């Protein structure tokens, strides 16, 4: 199972810096919620769709990412049409579709490392006032991106092992071994991170971090 959003490539969108892509996404997000003309929103959604296609992601990967979103949008469209009216539902649908497609174009073409580096830069002011350590936030996000598929794989292994012994799907019987195995893996991952000399040396502008006491 591939739950990662990034698809390697060398398209113009791939080559754009992460900061520029997120800046445009941020501005487009504000713009889309200020606009209410169906024609303009439709054009925006079309442009966003073209951008997604320009990422040259495999169709199967796109289908896997867009199918759940499509279902969600269909439910929202129906609910809005029932509770308000069809024109309002169309505006809502086009606005959300444009925004989601733009976000997908960004995540499809932005390496997780570039994404994390961008967030590190964005949160750097927090480090200067001692609120948070951007490198730790960045590593945490990276671990989530990396290990979501692993947790899903472990879930499938446990389910298969239980099914092989005739056990029907039972949330408690699935979750307890999954949590135990995930916590054990977390210990190993922490060791692996230590073994590779984390954290990086202190930056000149960083906080008071010593070699043996990184916190």
């Amino acid at each position: 199972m591939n739950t990662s959003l990034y698809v390697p490539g060398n398209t113009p969108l791939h080559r754009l810096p992460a900061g520029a892509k997120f800046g445009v996404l941020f501005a487009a997000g504000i713009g889309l919620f200020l606009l209410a003309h169906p024609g303009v929103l439709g054009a925006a959604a079309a442009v966003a769709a073209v951008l997604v296609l320009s990422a040259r992601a495999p169709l199967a990967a796109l289908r896997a990412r867009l199918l759940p979103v499509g279902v969600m949008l269909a439910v929202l469209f129906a609910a809005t049409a029932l509770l308000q009216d069809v024109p309002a539902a169309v505006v809502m649908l086009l606005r959300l579709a444009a925004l989601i497609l733009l976000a997908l174009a960004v995540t499809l073409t932005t390496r997780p490392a570039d994404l994390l580096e961008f967030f590190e830069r964005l949160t750097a002011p927090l480090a200067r006032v001692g609120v948070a350590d951007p490198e730790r936030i960045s590593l945490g996000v990276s671990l989530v991106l990396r290990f979501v598929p692993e947790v899903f794989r472990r879930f499938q292994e446990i389910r298969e092992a239980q099914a092989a012994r005739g056990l029907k799907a039972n949330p408690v019987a699935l979750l307890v071994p999954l949590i135990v195995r995930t916590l054990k893996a977390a210990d190993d991952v922490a060791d692996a991170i230590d073994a590779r000399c984390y954290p990086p040396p202190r930056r000149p502008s960083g906080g008071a971090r010593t070699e043996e006491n990184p916190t």
Partner: protein
Amino acid sequence: MTAPAGPAPGSAAEERPGAAEPPAPVIELQGVGVGYDGRTVLSGLDLRLAERRIGVIGQNGSGKSTLARLLNGLVVPDEGRVLVDGRDTRTEGRRVRSEVGFVFQNPDNQIVFPIVAEDMAFGLKNLGLPKKEIPGRVAGALESFGIGHLAERHSHLLSGGEKQLVALASVMVMRPRTVVFDEPTTLLDLRNRNRIRDAVDAMAPAAVVVTHDLELVSGYDRVLVVHDGGIAFDGAPGEAVAWYREHCS
């Protein structure tokens, strides 16, 4: 029971051109004892490790993995001390780990970034390498293991053998002087086991390999048998494996 330690006939030390290789750091264990939850795992260990290829064998639960983790400070001893070129792992762990790399049994828990090249870069960033030097170092390390084509792949979608090679490359890119392996071939099929064996044999740094694969250590300079919380045999591979088969099978 201890046999004289040193290069065995036909061992890796005889076959490798030692002059081209950096000297292995000397790892010393002095009166080392470790326990978990009130149970003694290792006790009274006194060892000096300086050979280029050292194998560690023993039964499950004998303390092999704990011994491996002591060597780069992932575990610090409850008693005694571990020195790597005179640096105490208790007080200079980070510095020791930059010299002594560690390859884990399960690469799924070692590879911490979603994309292979990013994972390779992680250790280099931690070493404080200038950012512009990192891509070149990463590409070189991947190519040296014949896995340059994996650089942009999702790490969790690789095969078991590819993952273990990536895990090894991610340690080697940091240019350690010694690499400790904790059962590196246990989860692999024969072909991938041989790829890892060949990679370990060919690499320049010294290696300490914890394994159940007795054939893997056959060409090593020295093999330790861990048994009942101590080193039961220390010597040439043939004698060590024979002792292990006789006493622990």
